Every structure is written in C-alpha cells, then in structure tokens.
C-alpha cells in the first residue's frame, strides 16, 4: 500500500503542476481530473475506500463535469491559448517558484525530523463506521453543511427563475389585448 500511496501522490503533484502550466483550458481540466483521481487512490491507500469512492463520484464525476461543461461553451481557440501562454512566461514565475521551493525544502526537513508513529497500512474503514462518526460526534458539522447546501439551492432557484412582469403590468396588458380583439 505504501507503493500505491507514493505513486499516486507523485501523480497528483505532477498533474496539479500541469493544471497550472497548461495553456489550453480543457487540457488543464483533464489534468485536474487526473489529479483528483490520484487523490482518490491516496485515500484508498490510507484505508478510506469510502472517501475514495466519494472523491471520484462527487469531485471527478460531478463537479469537474460542470467545469468542463462551462469551459466547453467559452469557445477557446488558438488565440486564447497563445495569450494564456504569454501569461506563463518564465520570468514571471521563476522568482516566486524558487522561493517557494526553498520553503518546501524547509518544511520537508522539518517534517522529516518528526517521528509521528503513523504508518500506511491500508486497513480499510468501512461505510458503517463513517456513518456512525458522521451522525455521532460530527452531527453538527453535517447539519451545518446541509444549511450551506440549502442556501445554495435557494439562491440557484432564485437566480434561475423565469423573469415575468409583476401582476399589475400583466393585467393591464391583458386588458389592452382584450379591448383590441
């Protein structure tokens, strides 16, 4: 399971790098999907098959489909790809990149010194245990998430509703039409 974990982790990091550096938006999204799938494998290797499955269903399978859906309609062409590429000129990202790498090195050294005692064994946690946790100690978080989702649903319904004239405008117009006929 350790091999699976590290392979998937490397894939996830590499794919995410390509998400940032890819000039073509749809190709970047494909790398993002790969990255999410790799994260699902990481979850699986850590012994959370349920979270892995939900990662694929919710993130890779539903949210990213909507991203692709929107980007598809933006009609990207060679010109936009070229513009995107010009924004990715090395002189723009080289400085922050090098400094970020230094920080990453510091974090890696610091974490290397810590003996956490944790190890990757892939002992699976089943759906029943997750359910007991969610609706036991963490029930408040679940309820809050439900509130947020309900608010989002109401907003979406409000934004998506059909525009119709207020009632008094409509009756006036109907009255006029009735007179004409």
């Amino acid at each position: 399971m350790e091999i699976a974990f590290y392979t998937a982790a490397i894939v996830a990091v590499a794919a995410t790098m390509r998400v940032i550096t890819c000039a073509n938006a749809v190709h970047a999204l494909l790398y993002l999907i790969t990255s999410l799938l790799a994260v699902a494998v990481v979850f699986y290797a850590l012994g959370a098959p349920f979270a892995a499955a939900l990662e694929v269903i919710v993130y890779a399978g539903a949210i990213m489909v909507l991203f692709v859906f929107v980007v598809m309609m933006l009609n990207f062409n060679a010109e936009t790809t070229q513009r995107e590429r010009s924004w990715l000129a090395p002189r723009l990202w080289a400085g922050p990149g090098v400094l970020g790498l230094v920080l990453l090195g510091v974090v890696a050294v610091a974490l290397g010194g810590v003996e956490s005692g944790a190890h990757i064994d892939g002992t699976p946690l089943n759906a029943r245990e997750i359910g007991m946790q969610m609706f036991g100690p963490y029930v408040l978080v679940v309820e809050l998430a439900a509130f947020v989702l309900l608010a989002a649903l109401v907003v979406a319904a409000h934004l998506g509703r059909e525009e119709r004239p207020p009632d008094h405008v409509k009756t006036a117009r109907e009255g006029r039409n009735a007179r004409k006929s």
Partner: protein
Amino acid sequence: MFGLSFDQLLDIALTAFETIAILLAVVIAAALLIWVERRLLGVWQDRYGPNRVGPFGILQVAADMIKIFFKEDWIPPFADKTVFVIAPAIIMFTTLMAFAVVPFTETIGVVDLNIGLLFILAMSSLGVYSVILAGWSSDNKYALLGGMRTAAQMISYEVFMGLSLLGVVLLAGSFDMRVIVESQAGMWNIIPQFPAFVIFLIAGCAEIHRAPFDLPEAEQELTAGYHTEYSGMKFGMFFVGEYLGIVLISCLITVLFFGGWLGPILPGFVWFALKAGFFVCFFVLLRAATVRPRYDQLMSFGWKILLPIALVNVAITGAVVVAMA
C-alpha cells in the same frame, strides 16, 4: 519468485484468467447484441432484420466487425487530436471496469469490494467524460450540442440512480454486491423496492443514453450528436460501449433487484444469464416501442417526478429498517 509461494502464484494466475474470461465474455455478448437488437427490432416492427449472413444472420456481427476494422479511421484536421482519440477509450474503460465488481455467481466475479456499488457509480460518473470530450474535441456544433445535452442529462439522472440504490443498500446493510445478492435469499428486492426498481430502470436507460433517452445523438436534430465526426474503430468503440452499457445495466438490475444468481434447480450462472438476458431484450423493446421526449420534458420529468419518489422511497425504507431493528 518475488517471495511468493506457489499457492499465491496459482491464485494470481487464476484471478487473471477469470478476469480475462469475464472481459471476453462481456465484450462478445456486447458485440452479439448488435445482431440481437436488429433481429428483435425486426420482430417487433414486423420485418426480418439481417438474416442473410450465416444461420439466422448471426455472422452479421462478423461482417460488421470486418467492415468497421477496415474503414478509414479519419481524424478531422480541426479536431483536438489527443482528446479526440482518448474520448472513445474512456467509455470502454469505465464500463469494463464496472464489471469488475459484478458478482456473476457464488464463485465467479473479479473482486468483492466493500464499496462495490459506489465503485460502479464512480465509473458511471466518469463515463460522462467520454461523451462530453468527444463532443468538445470534434469542434463541430452538432457534436458540441450533443455533448452538452449529455452532460446535463447524465449528471441529473446519476442523482436519481444513486438515490434509488440507497433503499437496496439500506436493506442489505452493505455496499458489497455479493452481500446484496445474498440478502435477497428470502425475497428479491423487486418486491420491497419496486419504486426504486422503476427509477433505476429509467435512470439506467438515461445513463447509457439509449432510446428513448438518446437525445445526445438524436439524429433528426443533431445528425449523430457527439460522435458525428467519428469513423472506423473509434466510432466502433462508442457503438460497442453503448451495448456494453446495456449489458452492465441489465446485470446491475439482476444483481440489485432480482436476486442475481439465486434461483431453484438450474445452476446460478444460467439464472443470472436468463435474468440479465431478459432485461437486455427489454431495453431493445423500449427502443422499438417508445418515442423520444423533448429535452425540457426529460429534465422536468427527472427533477419533478423521479427525485421526490426516490427521496420518499429512501425515507420509508429507512423508517422500516429502523422499526424492524
């Protein structure tokens, strides 16, 4: 070898053999369906169907395959080449992967995942990309429209599909497909979960975008929808992928609602094949007998009728399970 004992190696070899056998059986069944569907449509539309090549026209499959393999495989110069090539492979890959967790009999089946049902839902939700990317990469307005319709249709119907399965999961107390079949030893799920069965049948049909839910490729409006620009074996992959989808949904209905391999006298595999075969024929009959709805009808039917029924079904099943416990 690699520190493995002879028994372990034998085990690995057997699993590999089983996997390949299941893959071959499933793909051959899907290819045969091309002929079965045309013959059955012929029966229901009072005509013959292909009956010239070989006995009962069964070699029509071979003829079709030869034709499709030797056709020119043309990639339009304006297409996004990489994505254009990947797209048809995705549908084959995700559908075949989903068969990994289907338990065909007590002993046959590639793997018993404890998240089996979620794995199938995950694979079916990844299958959406095949159609969307095919539509986008073709750079053709009909293909793009087909791809967009698919995105909306498949994401919506996935919701009802998942919700309808929750009742089955509640009754079995597990996502493991084998446990679900074994839990039906007393009574098949079709009886306590009849509304869930109807929703799953409809949503499954929409997931594999078969008639009457074939709006993504509605030929009168969109030429051929997302695969307008595809030819040769790449088109063949979409074609066989659709039949694989029919076989998969039929197998799932059998496993989840009709007791899988369970049945008297006859061996388990025969029961499974009979039940799955019945639903394959039912899907063909659906195509022969129904008309395609309009796009807004499809959407409002899903969200206004299927979703409430599925939610009520989950609530009632949950209440019954709690009351019985």
